[in-house]
């Protein structure tokens, strides 16, 4: 087991290195291949109407006139050992320096993590509990109005984008009926009650999207499991219906749900982008959007690496869980 984990961790490092190389290539090699000069790249970092001397100085500072392998080596070295930028120390893991904000990228992202976690964890609990519960009820009431209604809501949840449901939720519950007025992120340590109150709408909106998917998956899994012979056997042995459903049927149906849940947590940044933009919460999602809007390449590269890291770690955890459940995958 330990060997398996070590092997996967080493693989994780290589994957991250490849992601770093690909993002570096996208932002620095492709423009050069398309004819962009080192001078042209540097102009993006010196504001409006720069003097040629200022552009040349920035070109030197950023090392755009050095060979690409030197630039990439410097980028990787900064991640491992840190780097000085314009007199500021960017400690490891230095994922670059934002010349737009004139700050190292990593501390900015770290300060945004609690916001994304707050949204993501709360929403994940909601969508897991809600989605599974709806799925189980739908399966048990198959063909009834309850089943159809649940699946219709689930279909709506999958179909409606967060920026739509979010704006509707704000319009209704923040402006028309101000149950949640002036929704802004408040730190959990600052005011736990306000933290929770202001997160209710983002949680519901994000959970609505995911819960729909989980409800449909749970329903399908439950319907399949309920037709298994061992369920019939359990009932024949006189087991209580509650035991049959929760202990035998749901347990088996949950296996793929757990796998997807792990991956969804890794991919949470995608959902967080729309939720944070809609509710103006300053998490990693909004950070990503701002970075793209500003064409802030170091920030985009940083957040890409961080997202890749989360996904790889989520995959690793899922694989480890699989290896625990099924020893065959260890080999």
């Amino acid at each position, binding site marked *: 087991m330990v060997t398996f984990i070590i092997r996967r961790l080493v693989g994780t490092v290589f994957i991250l290195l490849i992601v770093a190389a690909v993002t570096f290539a996208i932002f620095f090699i492709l423009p050069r291949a398309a004819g962009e000069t080192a001078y*042209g790249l540097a*102009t993006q*970092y*010196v*504001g*409006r*109407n*720069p*003097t040629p*001397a*200022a*552009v040349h*100085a*920035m070109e030197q*500072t950023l090392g755009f006139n050095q060979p690409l392998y030197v630039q990439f080596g410097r980028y990787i070295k900064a991640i491992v050992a840190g780097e000085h930028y*314009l*007199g*500021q120390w960017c400690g490891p893991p230095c994922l670059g320096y934002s*010349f737009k*904000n*004139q*700050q190292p990228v990593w501390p*900015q992202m770290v*300060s945004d993590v609690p916001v994304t976690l707050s949204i993501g964890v709360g929403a994940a609990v909601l969508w897991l509990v809600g989605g599974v519960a709806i799925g189980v009820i739908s399966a048990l009431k198959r063909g009834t109005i309850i089943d159809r209604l649940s699946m219709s809501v689930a279909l709506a949840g999958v179909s409606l984008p967060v920026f739509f449901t979010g*704006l509707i939720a*704000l*319009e209704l519950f*923040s*402006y028309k009926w*101000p149950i949640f*007025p*002036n929704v*802004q992120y408040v730190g959990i340590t600052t005011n736990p009650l306000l933290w929770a109150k202001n997160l209710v709408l983002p949680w519901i909106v994000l959970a609505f999207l995911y819960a729909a998917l989980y409800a449909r998956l749970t329903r399908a899994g439950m319907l399949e499991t309920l037709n298994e012979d061992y369920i019939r056997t359990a009932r024949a042995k006189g087991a209580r219906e509650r035991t049959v459903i929760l202990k035998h049927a749901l347990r088996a149906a949950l296996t793929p749900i757990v796998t997807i849940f792990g991956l969804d947590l890794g991919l949470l940044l995608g959902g967080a982008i729309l939720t944070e*933009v*809609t*509710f*103006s919460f*300053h998490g990693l999602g*909004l950070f990503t959007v*701002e970075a793209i*809007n500003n*064409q802030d390449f170091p920030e985009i590269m940083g957040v890409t690496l961080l997202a890749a890291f989360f996904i790889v770690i989520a995959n690793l955890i899922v694989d480890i869980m699989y290896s625990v459940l099924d020893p065959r995958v260890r080999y």
Partner: protein
Amino acid sequence: MMRRRRIGVTATCAVTAIALAACGSSSSPSSSSSTTTPSGPAYNQGISSVINPSTAKGGTITYDDSSTFDSTDPGNTYYAHVWNFSRLYATPLMTYTSTPGSGGNQLVPALATTPGVVSNNGLTWTYTIKPNVKFEDGTTVTSADVKYAVERTFDRTVLPNGPSYFQLLLGGNASTYPGPFKDRSKNLMGLTAVATPNPTTVVFHLAKPFADFNYVVAIPQTAPVPPDKDTGANYQLHPISTGPYMFQSYQLNKQLTLVPNPSWNPATNPQVSQLASKIVVNFNVNADDIDNRLLAGDIQMDVAGTGVQAAARARILSSSSLMKQADDPLAGFEWFFYLNTKVAPLNNIACRKAIEYAANKITLQDAYGGSVGGQIASTAMPPTVIGYQSFDMYEALSKPNGDPTMAKSELTACGQPNGFTTGIAYRSDRPKEVAAATALQAALSTVGIKTTLHGYPSGTYYSNFAGSPAYVHSHDLGIDIGGWAPDWPDGFGWFDEIANGNAIVPAGNTNISELNDPVVNNDLAEMESASSTPALRATLANEIDHKVMSDAVMLPIVYAKSLLYRSPALTNVYVQEYYGMYNYGVLGTK
């Protein structure tokens, strides 16, 4: 000098009138009546009057921003709304008069006691700074702090965002000076073009005369910075205040909180005031949500000052009660098409005139949001620029749907009676420009001018496409959309970059028409000569405007307007013409 002094007094009264609603007792009645609102607000009343004048102190003013400031460092910003907002904590040598109407375009001393004293044939500008201005920590501002503020803007690797006027205009070692962060001279004050003979005098030595230098020192870059408190790129996190407010906290690009600066003396700068007990700016807020929060009263101002989004615009314009709380001022910039003088057949002036006549100004205005989004333009220079005079050379106002007869006549004159083919360049990620290009294409087709549409990304529009003359020539981009807002509101600020033959450059070109008219070039040079006066500059600006239009190198679209919503909770609200948005320096809250 008397006139300048009187402007200063009027300005003082204007702000005081905002605050006391009583300045009229000691000034002229007309002045008083134009700056107060005795009978409640009305649509557009904030353009010419002060809404809710009050001296009431206390309360919190909350601003939202759909994006972020380019920087809160006064030496590192180029956004108009940040220049406006920065007056709350930064005091440059000169500033703009705090008053509604055209007076808001007039310069007055801020940190300086008077406008610059010119000597040495226009090469030397001397400013005396007020002796009792203090930083937030209580230390007195000296001329060395002003010199240092200018010096630090020379290091574009640390402060890349602000204008480069000092690098371009100053003499001495300005062309090679690296800035104080790399300066290795004794005392790190090595910019020889700026001298500080005593603690209250700062002297600028220019490379050549520049009559608009007072405008240059009104840019926040001259706001003093104490050298021992400068943290370089991190100075944006807490600029040391010389204004009525100071930074309490700043989470970069998330939230900024200002509180009153106890060391600020109101007598030192009557253009700003200290009424609210707290000012909060939230960044990166969803643009539509800003409008909702503004209309719901959760916030008091959209700090970007570019107007509400389409959804809120519809709500405001369909509600008389909301409309009373709105203003639709000229924003200070103009949208237009450049008509290139080098791309055949537009190298023939008659072909360019055919386009001027054929264009349908109504559909072009619709592309920019109709009359609320902009006023049909007939000149190359907008009404907010000093020296503007209305004229209608190509019947944009008298025949806004276009004049096909005149267009065909010009086509015949240019030897293309059946029309010709050329390209239209625009920024494809700007829906209004897409609509404008499409509208122009439709209008020109009615007289036989066939156009092909070429959309480009806005990020590289000037560097690689429309701003690259070689690209424009090789792709037959005879018509190129553009817009302009000047750094200061006179003819030089408006035309120098977009109509001066000397401004044509291989990349990042903003004279996209490639106009190189000796009359225009000479007028611009005369504007900045040592003998230039404000009256002469106004006359020359009007002359250039006529010349540019008679050369038919610009097809004006609209003088841009912004539909602004003024929160009923605010006091002393009015549009400052220079910024084209509300004056953030004087706001209070009920």
